[in-house]
């Protein structure tokens, strides 16, 4: 099959699956069947993506096909500047690499879900896999987009699927709220994307990211607002921790590996545009650096294992954004790739742990390592990769980012990232030492290793998580300048800090006793971070400001505007009622009026003459 056909297969087969599952309730409710259908779909997509990847290793720009989607013409300039609004398929190194990441993680997550979601009622099970397939379609639409418009289509669709999947447990009010919050906040940020697209199109006549754009500054800034929402950058990150209300595999796929990385993908995609806007790039670097630091501080004090991972995702996305802000598309996207693998694995492993103890609290897990060696092992590999321990994939990509940021001269973000690197190692160490090696808790008594469906994906993901870093040159060559890894002072510092962080966490949480003093040092910082000022201000903005304003408008409409309309009717009726007595019903009164009027008219006519 041609590359285009493969890409279309990888995109539309999942759509077909999702649509069939929607319109065929019989299949959707048929026990495990929808799960298998969905997994096979994902597998087909994965195979297609891998095949495309193989193409991509040889030819970087594989194919680009577009078709008109909307008719468009500019009044009076139809012949001079014919422009159409198109959608299509663009296959190059970047999209193909992303396609592989997406399909691989999606496949692993779906397989994992077969085990994780096995206890769900059939209808819900089917619904879950319907949305999973829909997600694959949406994400692939985004990835293969040849222009920003289609990217936006996919962008919104993944947002929708995110909403649906976070709200999977819709009977839980908190889940329903979290879904809403995620959708609202990303949609709020997406207003920037819409505006950016419109400004771009009106000024250049196309949605392409290539070419010189006079208004690159505003456009990229607007686009970046959307990125901040989708990729959970401060202060729009508030939805991501709440999004953990969704099933854990969903968190792994959407809210760790792929969907939240869409923002990073967008910036990497529109790199030519962003290059023309250095101010935006600097802004990105600072936002990214701050987010990385802020989120990692908050992660330190979380007890919910998924919340820790969520904040860590925030933090890592901050790294990527910072790298892109430093102008390094390669570093940012490379970290996206490695992060997708190890973070998905971390989440899946965490899912396994949660599944075993039926709790998200790390203190309820305690000592699971002995009972669940494989899952724990995967978790530890992921944690090490995340902490940037030399040899693991995260080490390579994170060091690349730090180097690029350093070279760009962005010292403040660099410092933030460095501290964040230390904190990352520290909080991951904390989770590992408490949850896997800590004091056994009574919740964990009956814990046992998960089944094949839930361990197989971990094994699959562990491979790239371990060794993706060694193929940095080949991978980076796909979507940019091939970058060979070399050990630099910057990288060594970061690694050393990371190891320090692990050591500290062992001292505080792993060692039988001790570290109490240090814990009191961290306590105020933790309280500050956990107080959720950002969250509260959003809540205030929504509950008090927006709802209050809307309430005022509603009142104004009902009682003032509509009141005025009613008042017109009321006055008409009242005037009528007042005038009624004039009609006495007595013939002679009318005659009087008639005679008086005749005389008056006659007099008037006389005066006129």
């Amino acid at each position: 099959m041609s590359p285009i056909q493969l890409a279309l297969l990888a995109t539309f087969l999942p759509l077909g699956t999702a649509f069939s599952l929607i319109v065929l309730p019989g299949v959707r409710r048929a026990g495990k069947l929808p799960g298998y259908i969905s997994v096979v779909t994902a597998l087909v997509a994965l195979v297609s993506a891998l095949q495309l990847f193989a193409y991509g290793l040889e030819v970087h720009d594989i194919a680009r096909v577009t078709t008109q989607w909307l008719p468009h013409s500019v009044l009076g300039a139809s012949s001079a500047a014919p422009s159409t609004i198109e959608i299509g398929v663009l296959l190059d190194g970047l999209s193909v690499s992303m396609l592989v990441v997406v399909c691989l993680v999606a496949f692993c997550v779906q397989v994992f879900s077969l085990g994780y979601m096995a206890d769900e009622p059939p209808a819900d099970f089917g619904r879950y896999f319907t949305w999973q397939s829909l997600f694959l379609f949406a994400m692939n639409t985004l990835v293969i987009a040849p222009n920003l418009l289609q990217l936006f289509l996919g962008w919104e669709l993944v947002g929708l699927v995110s909403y649906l999947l976070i709200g999977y447990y819709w009977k839980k009010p908190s889940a329903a709220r979290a879904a809403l919050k995620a959708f609202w906040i990303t949609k709020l940020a997406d207003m920037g994307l819409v505006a950016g697209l419109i400004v771009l199109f009106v000024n250049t006549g196309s949605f392409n990211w290539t070419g010189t754009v006079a208004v690159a500054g505003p456009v990229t800034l607007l686009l970046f607002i959307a990125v901040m929402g989708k990729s959970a950058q401060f202060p729009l990150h508030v939805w991501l921790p709440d999004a953990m209300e969704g099933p854990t595999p969903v968190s792994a796929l959407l809210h760790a590996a792929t969907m939240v990385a869409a923002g990073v993908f967008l910036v990497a995609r529109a790199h030519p545009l962003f290059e023309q806007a250095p101010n935006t790039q600097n802004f990105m670097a600072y936002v990214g650096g701050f987010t990385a630091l802020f989120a990692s501080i908050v992660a330190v004090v979380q007890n919910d294992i998924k919340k820790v991972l969520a904040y860590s995702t925030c933090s890592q996305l901050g790294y990527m954004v910072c790298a892109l802000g430093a102008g390094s598309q390669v570093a940012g996207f490379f970290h996206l790739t490695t992060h997708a693998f190890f973070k998905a694995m971390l989440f899946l492993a965490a899912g396994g742990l949660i599944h075993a103890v039926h709790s998200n609290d790390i203190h309820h897990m305690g000592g699971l390592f002995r009972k669940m060696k494989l899952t724990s092992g995967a978790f530890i590999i992921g944690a090490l990769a995340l902490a940037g321990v030399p040899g693991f994939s995260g080490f390579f990509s994170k060091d690349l980012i730090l180097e690029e940021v350093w070279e760009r001269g962005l010292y403040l973000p660099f410092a933030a990232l460095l501290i964040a690197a230390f904190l990352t190692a520290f909080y991951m160490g904390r989770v590992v030492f408490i949850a896997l090696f800590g004091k056994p808790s009574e919740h964990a008594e009956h814990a046992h290793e998960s089944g094949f469906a839930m361990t197989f994906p971990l094994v699959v993901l562990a491979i790239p998580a371990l060794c993706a870093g060694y193929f940095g040159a080949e991978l980076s060559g796909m979507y940019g300048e091939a970058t060979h890894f070399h050990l630099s002072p910057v990288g060594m510092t970061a690694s050393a800090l990371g190891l320090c962080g692990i050591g500290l966490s062992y001292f505080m949480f792993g060692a039988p006793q001790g570290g109490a003093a240090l814990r009191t040092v961290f306590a105020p910082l933790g309280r500050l971070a956990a107080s959720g000022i950002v969250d509260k201000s959003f809540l205030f903005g929504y509950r008090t400001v927006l709802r209050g304003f809307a309430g005022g408008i509603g009142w104004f409409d009902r009682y003032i505007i509509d009141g005025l309309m009613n008042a017109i009717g009321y006055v008409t009726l009242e005037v009528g009622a007042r005038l009624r007595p004039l009609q006495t019903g007595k013939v002679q009164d009318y005659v009087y009026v008639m005679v008086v009027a005749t005389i008056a008219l006659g007099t008037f006519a006389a005066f006129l003459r």
Partner: protein
Amino acid sequence: MGNFAHAHLLSIIVAAPAVAALVVLLLPESERLAIRMAALFGALCSLAGSIEVLRTYDTAQAGLQRMERYALVPSMGIDLSLAVDGWGVSLLLLTGIIITAGVFASFTLEERPKEFFALLLVLVAGVFGVFVAQDIFVFFLFYEVAVLPMYLLIGVWGSHGKVEAHGPFAFIWKRFDVGGREYAAMKLTLMLLVGSAAILVVIIAMYFAAGGTSFDLTHLANTKFPRELQLWAFPLLWLGFGSLAGVFPFHTWSPDGHAAAPTAVSMLHAGVLMKLGAFGVIRIGMMLLPEGARYWAPWVGGIAVINVLYGALSAMSQKDLKYIIAYSSVSHMGVVMLGAATLTVDGWNGAIYQMFAHGMMTGLFFALVGLIYGRAHTRLIPRMGGFAKDMPWVAGFFVLAGLSSLGLPGLAGFVAEFLVFMGAWQSAHSWWAIPGIVGAWVTAVYVLNASRTIFFGTGPSDEFHELRDAHGTEWVALWGLSLCLMLFGSYPRLILDFIHIATNEYLPKVALVADQLAVLAR
């Protein structure tokens, strides 16, 4: 027969519902099934005719097609002349879809089905007529035919609401049963008739200014009216038609009217009738009075922007489900008017497409609301919760309609809103795009919040024991409208191509090309 039908397709589309109404009236009250089938048949005939018109419209030739002309009052130059352009094609299709869905949605109506369906069909005949009339007198005639049955439909089959007395005008409650169905019907009729009066004045003025020989739309469009006439006549037309399109501050009939109206009537009213107003503003107001349109465009757009945000925020503060949807219509009709005011190709395409998309979306909404109300017997959202357990499909469709209304790509609403915003940015008043975009977000807030409260979370409580999913013919309405939303959202060219042709033809007569080029060069 085939040839005859083909040659008189437009007449058939307009006449089919009217004939069906007659048949329904002639049938005995007891033959309920026959009554329904006759109504359905009339609706389906129109739908099929609309599809055929769409299929056979010659895009290469463009312009007015399928011209039919019968002299009505030759001495005054009134002809019953019918023809379609690209806009008419799409709006005919919309009307066909909505009436069919509406009949399906209220197929099982128990209260006086005979009179109900007869009035409904007469109303639809009027709507079809407006979209194909090429004579302004006949246009107005059909317009009134479409508006007036509403009074009975709401007054007889409507439902009661209650509004608390508050504010500086609280004394009014002494006299009016605010929120009641008679009140709503009366308010709607009176406000729309005031609008009609304004329209009639302008129609007569234009007729005489154009020589007093013909009411033909093309003739009037080719007449260059004096500037003074255009400047005073345009606002009258705008507010006259605008009162039906829910233009602020003449929108207040809409929430009460839609809330009180029965399901199919709400569907039809918000789905197509409000479009008549917007269509009138563009087709009559802007095209016959281009100078007036240009002069007043900043006002039209400014008020439209208010409509968008004001409607959305008002919707957010409502507790009654029907009021939410009604206010959302006000907000979305603001998008239509905004697109019209931009005087750009994209803006006009978007405006007409928004009519189309919003028609189907709000039709779906009102079908669902009627269905929920029929089972829950309340419209107050705070009392509901967890309904998705008993009515999962209704929940799904509701969210789908909501997604379309907030402009989710892949659904029809997005295409329209995006085009309108693009047009707004290209217009002389770029800032219009910003409140438009914000309005879409506010829509996301209130629509999804409503669906969360109604369908998700814990519940439903014991008082709701009759909840059940859609059944029977309701499925047809829900699925039909949902699939249309998806179809026209993912392949908009299906009708956007037709709209585009008409826009390309009409707009240069209204907008000054130089204006746009200046904007582009900026």
